[in-house]
């Protein structure tokens, strides 16, 4: 039965860590805008895009060569 005491302690510590995570996420403003970040992540960075495209074509070419 003494295992119950240990489990009790562990479960509460885990629960408290989630509470702290929740408070942190609220205070740092992660809920201020629920829409824009989901869109922002989809935009490609234009400057990197070019080099990426070049890279992928190079990769393709090399795979063709193989």
């Amino acid at each position: 039965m003494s295992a119950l005491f240990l489990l009790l302690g562990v479960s509460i510590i885990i629960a408290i860590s989630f509470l702290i995570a929740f408070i942190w996420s609220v205070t740092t403003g992660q809920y201020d805008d629920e829409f824009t970040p989901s869109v922002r992540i989809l935009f490609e960075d234009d400057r990197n895009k070019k080099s990426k495209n070049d890279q992928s074509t190079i990769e393709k070419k090399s795979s063709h060569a193989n």
Partner: protein
Amino acid sequence: MKGKYNCYHCGDFCIDDIVSDGNHFCCNGCKHVYLLLSENGLCNYYQLDNTPGIKVKGKFKGDRFAYLDDESVISKLILFNSSHQINVKFSLPQIHCLSCIYLLEKLHQIESGIIQSRVNFQEKNIFISFNPQLISLRKVVELLSFIGYEPSISMQDAISVKKKNTSKKQIIQIGVAGFCFSNIMMLSFPEYFSRGNLELPELQQTFSWVILLLSIPVFIYSASSIFLSAINGLKQKKINIDIPIALAILITFSRSYFEIITNCGSGYLDSGTGIIFFMLIGRWFQNKSYDVLSFDRKYQSYFPLGVTIKKNGIEQNIPITKLAINDIILIRNNDLIPADSLLMEGDANIDYSFVNGENIPQQKNVGDLLYAGGKQLGTSILLRAIKIPSQSYLTELWNNSIFEKNKEKKDSFIHPWSKYFTLVLLSIAFIASIYWQWTDPSKVLLVLTSVLIIACPCSLLLSATFTFGNMMRIIGKHQLFLKNATVIESLAKINHIVFDKTGTITSQQKTAINYRGIPLSPLENDLIKYTTANSSHVLSRSLNSHFSVLSNMVSPSFLAYCEEGGKGIFAKTAETELRLGNSDFTASDLLNNSLKSSAVHVNINDNYKGYFEIVHPYREGLDEMVSKLKKKYTLHVLSGDNDAEKSTLQQIFGNDTVIYFSVTPQGKLEYIKALQKKGANVLMIGDGLNDAGALMQANVGIAVSENSAQFSPACDAIIDASSLNKLPSILKYTRMSKVNISIGFAVSILYNIIGISLAVQGKISPVVAAILMPVSSISIVLIAMITSKWSEKLLKLSIIKS
């Protein structure tokens, strides 16, 4: 195929075809924005959405934002300031699509001085940080305006930048309460199932102590707002709804702590924390506001921040607060007049529609008095200020005492209930403890506290907060946005409805154009289209958008073209001479003022053809809405406009409806006051500044808005213009609120009767209390949800029917 394209940038029809990189543009403004974006590799803007651009309106004037160089203005606007970084937040009502986010977050690619820009799509604002050594605030604003996103900067925004930390605190309070409540529930389960007797007393004791520790943050932190409001109520010697709740919480917690510490029981902390958790959720639900909308706007937010004045022949921009009497003000096309002033120079054509509801722009002569709030349409004019902005005629209205005090908070119909409830409860507890004093004095304390704990008025309150909060959300779906949930109750009591005319029951954006006279040939029709395309006058604009090209005519080359401010346009092509304008200018037989609506007369080759009558049409579904509302309510119409529309209005509203014309803003306020004196509950529906007083005075004021980002005066609710015809159904829905809450009440009273009858007999066991209390709270929340959902179905049905 020339002239048959849509603009690549804004999607407008191209009249002058301007081509760049194989793309077509309607004007040079749009082309320049395109060039700027393509130069900086931001053409993705056009791929994310079709023609996402915002049409560049008029010419971009170099010194329009000069007031942003003024230190005192800057310090009011910025959030953070250091030598290398300035942070600022602007509201950009134009944000409408994904392309907007894309472009606005890439500003740093256009101007290297901008460090970062972040868009909040839902709140339609942008956060920009920039390096003040590389770029000035004014340059940032000018860049935003150039690409079509002109920030709305007003005096009121500048005054109050900070807000909103309170809602974060509220959410954390709910989070803490929810965390503690659910963990306490978990630890209480063994007790529920073992009927209060755990086999291992050690384990039970540990559980109790952990529960006690978990409940402390709820008691001290989460419930603090309830205690504070109860204390405030006591200080003001008023019994508010929080006093009995605070009392119940206090008794529940202290008795539970006593039981746990003395090891004589396990207390009621599960239900105690549960009730606090549900109460907080209910309040948050009820107070959830629409952040994008502003319900408390004053005249300051309507006025611009800066104004151009002429001193010793030099134009300079100053903040509006520094405007002094006798300053010479320069007002350009579409600028607002910031203070009452005299016209010195130029053709004044002032649109007062937002101020007093008059439809037609007024022609003014040099020396005339111009009131603040009017909008100049046409060429630039010079004015001499005779009053400072805060003392002008329009702003005086705000000095009316009605704006000073907040609207009296009328007691919700739950309040008297809860008062009686508290009284009855206290007397039951008192009588029961006297009885037990006689029979078994050891049980007195137990009975007294259990009666008070069991019969907490919380569940009564929960049913009201949840029902109202849910209804407010549902009404919001139909584009009527309420300031807070108490408006629902006020709406349910309405028996008189007062309408404003201009902008409320007529559409402000749409114009209907009727032509009266000798029919025009397609060629003549097209000529008018092309002629008006070159003018920025409002009437030309609306005429221009009314026509479509009928013949295959290409934009003609004009031999002569001149626009005489306030008179009309003269245009000459190889074959024809066209005069568009007022009756004198076009040699009409009609007197200018005999028509009560705006009219543009047409004269072709010295033959008077006829005139275009430009009217704002009534909103769709108005007839039906009026006939429905008339069954239940007494209707009134107060218009600031002249009585040109009297017969039409009388036809729509019927002969029994009172219709007044040429009512002043003050007059509207007085009219509503008079109605209220006779005992009426008045709903005012209006839109402009001229209705502001009436909206405040009325029991409920609803502002009609064609674009929720646009300015609307202080009010209790904002309705989207397209939803105005749903009003009868929505009002019916609010009347159902009373039924819904009563159902919740009945159930919670049933719980209370069961609980109290057990408690007075001293039979209440911890198990019964522990189960009864959370179950009653949860079931009441559920009932509130179900009843408002059910009435939403009825609401939908009645909307479909109409």
